[in-house]
């Protein structure tokens, strides 16, 4: 196959270049917009497959543009980057289909799809960032690109949510800027290198290294919604359903979690982080977040709010697995990055369908919705069961490896934590399923005027992603499955320490 040294850049430019065109398209050119959206998203998936194929054959892409002396914008397509790029490319395609249906005849579609595209470009940049400086550039772009999406509806609640979102994420962005500067000043490089770049600094100034770790994790923790800086996430769920889906599954929270992975493994190196004694507190924060998010989720009547708190909890699995400092746990963490994305996007799209088709937005209104929308609810159920951790679905795989990793790291209490969390997951998801399938719809709900048949654009995407949930769980050991790919990555990060 022909060689394409600029392939990572081209993948970045597909959505980055589409954004201004989409913004400029007149509001009424709906067909053209839909066609362009789908074409670009599909091309992107194809390019990512090509990239993955090349990477599996040992081709390492590496692009640099010098910005200041010694400081580069650096794109690289290492296996870890590829994993995140693939997740975002595939889920972008699905969410785009969903958005077309969701926003049909709605206002401001040009703006929506423009920023949507920009948001995905930022995610791809975050994934392929080869140093913390480049990561920062795209991290800030992501903040800018998601803000118009969060306030898309333009209501007072949306504007308030947008303001809170902006305050949190820009504060996090400033902290990351400070951390990047400090890393640059201390280590003389911001490159992501397996094993880290902080060894010398930590030997000379352990205090500074610890402070830097705390600063960077705090900065990334804002987007990853770690307690106590998670407050924006449940508020931001006022955004339209496809935005919530993308925010919770791929874009924002995952950008934070992915950043934590990079910082722990490739800025500090897991051994060094352990030696500095900073992984312990990180494990504690992750554990608290997991339990706290689940407890708050149980109290929510609004379906999207419940899903949002569930995200707070679930994304911390990734942080937990990273901080446990065992290769097996790392596999669980990285696999969960994919698994949680696929599961959560299914649930948010299904929740959006309930609101669109039945006007159901609260858990207490869900009686009998299974019969009204069997396809959507089947998808939701599958994802919920996977999230709880039932075998053989995706969520089980993550939890299994995390538990194994906990044992390997000598932290047996992790099993109790995961069991407790699963029980809580069950406690806040099973009542939904019970209401949907085993209760009859109230007469007034059955005759509600809000009922309308949803289009295939809306109905198909959650079922497709639910299919992914099933496939990546059942075929977890097949080549190119998320699990196999994460094994490959972890071998690299731990220098063959498996």
């Amino acid at each position, binding site marked *: 196959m022909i060689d394409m040294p600029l392939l990572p850049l081209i993948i970045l430019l597909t959505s980055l270049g589409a954004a201004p065109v989409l*913004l400029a398209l007149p509001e009424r050119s709906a067909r053209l917009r839909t066609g362009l959206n789908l074409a670009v998203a599909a091309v992107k998936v194809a390019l990512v497959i090509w990239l993955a194929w090349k990477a599996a054959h040992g081709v390492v892409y590496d692009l640099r*543009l*010098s*910005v*200041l*002396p010694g400081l580069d*914008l650096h794109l690289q397509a290492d296996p870890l980057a590829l994993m995140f790029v693939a997740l975002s490319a595939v889920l972008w395609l699905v969410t785009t289909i969903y958005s077309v249906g969701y926003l049909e005849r709605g206002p401001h579609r040009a*703006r929506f799809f423009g920023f949507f595209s920009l948001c995905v470009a930022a995610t791809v940049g975050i994934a392929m960032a080869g140093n913390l400086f480049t990561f*920062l*550039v795209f991290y*800030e*772009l992501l903040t*800018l690109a998601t803000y*118009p999406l969060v*306030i898309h509806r*333009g209501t007072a609640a949306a*504007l308030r949510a*947008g303001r809170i979102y*902006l305050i949190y994420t*820009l504060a996090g962005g*400033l902290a990351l*800027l*400070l951390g990047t*500067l*400090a890393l*640059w*000043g201390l280590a003389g490089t911001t490159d992501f290198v397996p094993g880290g770049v902080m060894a010398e600094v930590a030997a000379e100034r352990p205090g500074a290294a610890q402070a830097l770790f705390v600063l960077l994790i705090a900065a990334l923790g804002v987007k990853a919604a770690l307690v106590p800086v998670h407050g924006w996430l449940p508020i931001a769920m006022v955004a339209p359903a496809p935005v919530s889906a993308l925010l919770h599954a791929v874009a924002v929270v995952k950008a934070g979690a992915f950043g934590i992975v990079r910082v722990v493994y490739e800025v500090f190196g897991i051994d060094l982080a352990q030696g500095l004694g900073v992984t312990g507190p990180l494990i504690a924060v992750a554990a608290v977040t997991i339990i706290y998010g689940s407890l708050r989720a149980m109290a929510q009547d609004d379906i999207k709010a419940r899903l949002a708190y569930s995200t707070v909890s679930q994304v911390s699995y990734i942080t937990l697995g990273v901080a446990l400092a065992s290769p097996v746990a790392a596999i669980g963490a990285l696999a969960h990055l994919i698994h949680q994305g696929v599961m959560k996007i299914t649930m948010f799209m299904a929740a959006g369908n309930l609101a669109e088709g039945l006007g159901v937005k609260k858990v207490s209104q869900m009686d009998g919705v299974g019969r009204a929308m069997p396809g959507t609810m089947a998808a939701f159920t599958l994802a919920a069961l996977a999230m709880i951790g039932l075998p053989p679905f995706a969520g089980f795989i993550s939890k299994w490896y995390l538990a194994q990793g906990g044992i390997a790291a000598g932290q047996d209490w992790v099993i109790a934590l995961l069991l407790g969390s699963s029980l809580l997951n069950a406690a806040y998801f099973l009542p939904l399923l019970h209401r949907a399938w085993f209760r009859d719809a109230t007469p007034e709900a059955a005759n509600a005027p809000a009922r309308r048949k949803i289009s295939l654009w809306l109905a198909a995407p959650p079922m497709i992603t639910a299919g992914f949930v099933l496939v990546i769980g059942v075929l977890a050991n097949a080549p190119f499955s998320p699990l196999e790919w994460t094994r490959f990555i972890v071998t690299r990060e731990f220098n063959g320490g498996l």
Partner: protein
Amino acid sequence: MPEFAPDPMTLAILLPLFGAIAAFLAPRAAPLIGLGAVGAMAAAIAAVGHAVAQAGTVTVPLGGWGAPLGIELRADGLALAMLGLTALIALAVGLGALSAFAGEAPADGQPMPRQRAFFWPLCLLLLTGMNGVYLSADLFNLYVMLEVISLAAVGLAVLGGTVAALRAGLAYMYASLLGALMVLLGVGFVYLQTGRLDFAGLAGAQGSPALSAAFALMLVGLALKAALFPLHFWLPEAHANATAPASALLSALVVKAGLYILLRLAEAGPFPGEAILTLLGVLGTGAVLWGGVQALRAERLKLLVAWSTVAQIGLIFVALARAGTEGLSDSWRAAALLILAHAVAKAGMFLAAGRIKDVIGHDRISELDRSAVRPALAQLAFALAAISLIGLPPSLGFIGKWSLMEGAMGAGNWHWIAVTMAGTLLSVAYFSRALTGFLRFDRVRAPLDEHRGWALADAPPVVLAGLAVGLGLAAGPILAVLDLGRPFGVTP
């Protein structure tokens, strides 16, 4: 009689001057003459650039008189970057002005309206002064050119002819004259002390209390001209009430003349003692905070933009002070980057604000989200310019801020980092007041053609704002240009 050989540096100063005279004499052809003169000037600057790229520093003795007493023109990387910047902004603003004043074409036999008649002569006169400042290698010449700039700038500020503009212009004129007077006094004292006025001579001068006093006088005069807090009082009203193309020139270029001379003095003189440098940083901090707070309170878009200039100028002073005297030989680079970034972005932003005002009919921030016509491209330009002024990556403003903070951290001056961060947060807060309005824009139903929201006049602000963001990726080459001829004697 010495043979007249038109060297490009002389031309860069003379071409706009001739253009100004021609445009004054033939007001109907003024736009054509103006754009022609700017184009010719850009060509001369390109020739200067070629020479500087070859030799590093280029000097030309004027009229056969060399240093120490004569007039000498000198160009290095810093001067070249400023020349190029000025040509770029002049071209963009000139094109923007074409349409801004187009609606006022008079019927045959009628006199030209003031704006159309005087914009080009004043603009070209301003360019003469700006280029003169960049290329001067001695203090007296600098003073003369500063006065040329003052004349042109005050004229531009009152061009709109409204009562508010005239009142603001009067304050501006007093401030400008006072500043120039202090510079002149300082120059006189320097000459009495050292018997020389050229930079090279100053660098070798013996320090003395009288010389320090002379520099202090010049410093205060220049701070007044650059609108450093608390000497900024004249700026917001003058910039906000001028017509948009004039505001763009005043904010992007005129205040930079004072800053540029400060940079040159920092290179040449014994002036920047640790205490003075810290004082500049502290005043800069005051500007960042006070300008930010006032921008938050401003009720009109152009006033908001003008107050943001006060804050951004403050940040440039912080950049100069970031690493103390030890690091001054590097700090100027951060300051220069911020000067360039601010100039490009602010010119774009003022042009965009002018377009928004023209299209919507007013610039009250609280009502910018409703109109029959949407100035979409102008809003885009405003947003892009804001990204650079806030300092979000990868814009040129971000690179400038990064350099500022990098040096501050290297010197352990965390307080300057804190100031920069506070300034960033404030700028997010005040710009988002306008930007949120753009996002929740609602078209008021009215029987109007949908396409009137954009015009060719939107191109200059969009291009400038796009450059303000995109040039961040070219920071490497920009730094390489700045270092040509080693303006601060130290290799990077």
